[in-house]
């Protein structure tokens, strides 16, 4: 029981973004930004990560809220809770794929305190990594999952590069599909990063899941008007109907005219370290009739080049069928 009490830390509760940036820059290396805390406290309680300086972002009101942008898009503050995203009328009306994705995250209580920013920036769930062993992602020089007997049923089909962990987020594929941009602020100023470039794989930096570095704060997510009101599809397959991270999830947005798919964006989660943009599928179905035959072709094209590990072969037909459903049933 006493091991479960988190190790002691200094807690800062700034009320402005610049204050948070200041603190995180000053304590870079031993600092940690906390939003809802659902990811962070697991690390702290297991004592695998022990920052001495914790910056609580939950008091920064400018990080909350959902507002319309002048060009018709939507800006969502990074500290907006998943429940707020899920139930927001504008999100439901125009970008329902994000509402559905948010609704599938974890459990009601986690959605009530968990934030959109936190869901995007959360660390991977590979159990070896979470257990605290010295794997590549933890700064060591081995991988326990990518071995003949490693329990890797939840790990990746593409993009393995010493690490085979996957992106656990449900909202990330939805935002990649919506062509969202992440707004990041640090001591040098503010910049916007397209969602696809926000997430990085082990080939770029094996110790991070996103481009954020110490001193960076994700402040908002901006969704352009391009895909507002599109025909959406979201499905998440997991061991249980609640709580569990996805085995595979899929988010699609398309405009259908006269029975043909005019344009489409689609991404899948939990099959790669980053949300996997299914560009091949998009190329195959654009201009084609939205029917069973196109859907099956799309499914087959989606899984080309997948490299399964010893225990995750099931993800291949799973992804194939999800893509088929997305095209046919959206």
């Amino acid at each position, binding site marked *: *029981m*006493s091991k*479960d*009490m*988190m*190790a*002691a*830390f*200094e*807690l800062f*509760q700034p009320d402005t973004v610049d204050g948070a940036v200041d603190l995180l820059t000053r304590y870079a290396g031993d600092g940690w930004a*906390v939003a*809802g*805390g*659902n990811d962070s*406290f*697991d690390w*702290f*309680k297991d004592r695998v990560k022990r920052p*001495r*300086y*914790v910056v*609580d972002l*939950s*008091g920064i009101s400018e990080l909350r809220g959902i507002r319309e942008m002048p060009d018709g898009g939507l800006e969502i503050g990074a500290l907006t809770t998943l*429940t707020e995203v899920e139930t927001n009328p504008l999100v439901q009306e125009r970008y329902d794929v994000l509402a559905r994705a948010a609704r599938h995250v*974890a*459990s*009601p*209580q*986690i959605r*009530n*305190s968990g934030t959109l920013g936190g869901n995007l920036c959360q660390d991977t769930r590979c159990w070896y990594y979470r257990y605290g062993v010295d794997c590549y992602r933890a700064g060591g020089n081995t991988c326990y999952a990518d071995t003949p007997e490693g329990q890797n049923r939840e790990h990746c089909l593409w993009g393995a590069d010493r690490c085979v962990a996957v992106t656990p987020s449900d909202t990330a594929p939805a935002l990649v599909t919506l062509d969202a941009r992440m707004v990041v602020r640090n001591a040098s100023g503010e910049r916007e990063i397209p969602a696809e470039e926000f997430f990085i794989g082990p080939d770029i930096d094996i110790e991070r899941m996103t481009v954020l570095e110490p001193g960076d704060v994700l402040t908002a997510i901006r969704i352009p008007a391009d895909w507002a009101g599109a025909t959406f599809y979201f499905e998440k397959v997991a061991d249980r*109907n*609640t*709580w569990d991270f996805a085995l595979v999830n899929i988010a699609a947005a398309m405009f259908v005219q006269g029975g043909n798919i005019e344009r489409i964006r689609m991404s899948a989660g939990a099959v790669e370290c980053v949300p996997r943009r299914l560009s091949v599928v998009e190329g195959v179905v654009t201009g084609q009739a939205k029917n069973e035959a196109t859907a099956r072709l799309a499914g087959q094209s989606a899984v080309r080049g997948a490299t399964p590990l010893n225990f995750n072969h099931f993800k291949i037909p799973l992804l194939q069928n999800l893509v088929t459903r997305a095209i046919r049933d959206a």
Partner: protein
Amino acid sequence: MSDNNLVNRQAPEPQYDTGGLASVASAKASRRQFIKGVIASGAVASSAGYLFGCSTDEAPMTVAGGVERLLTLTVNGQTRRVDVLPNETLAMTLRYKLNLTGTKLGCDRGECGACTVLLDDVSTYSCSTLTHSVRSRAITTIEGLESADGELHPVQQAMIDELGPQCGFCTPGQIMSAVALLRANPNPTRDEARMALSGNLCRCGAYDHYLNSVMRAAEMA
């Protein structure tokens, strides 16, 4: 062969110690009340000192940030002043400093729901919330549901009427989730109730009974 020894032998009368224990029993005191008395008298540091890593006998911790701060929390409509460490979760504060042990710790990882409380009517895992982060929110625990004259909340009464719980350990969390649901949606469908309680595990498998209780409570209220 005669077995007189066995035939006539009877088990001796049990001898109860009717000395000190009888007076305790007759005073209707219990171990539970004794422990709560220890906590209430402020000796919490010594009883839970192992948990918080400090004691009133020693100097305050010298680890960075290991200093408690006095907070004023609103819990069940009451103002409670309590010293809280920066790394202290709401569940720890409620249970070990405020004597509100109705909120349970099942997993302490946000994966079971036994610690569910309401923050401004919104259900949350108190094990995954820093007390310092919620000091301005209205906190409601299971103890705060019954009315001042002891009348049970409709959800609590419905749980009894429908035999919701088995062992009862997950029950406070289930009830808090149900109360949050009914405050937001007084007439839920069974599926909506199922979704609302989907963040509460029950190892006894009494899920269906809990749903019956919630549906009954919705009818009653």
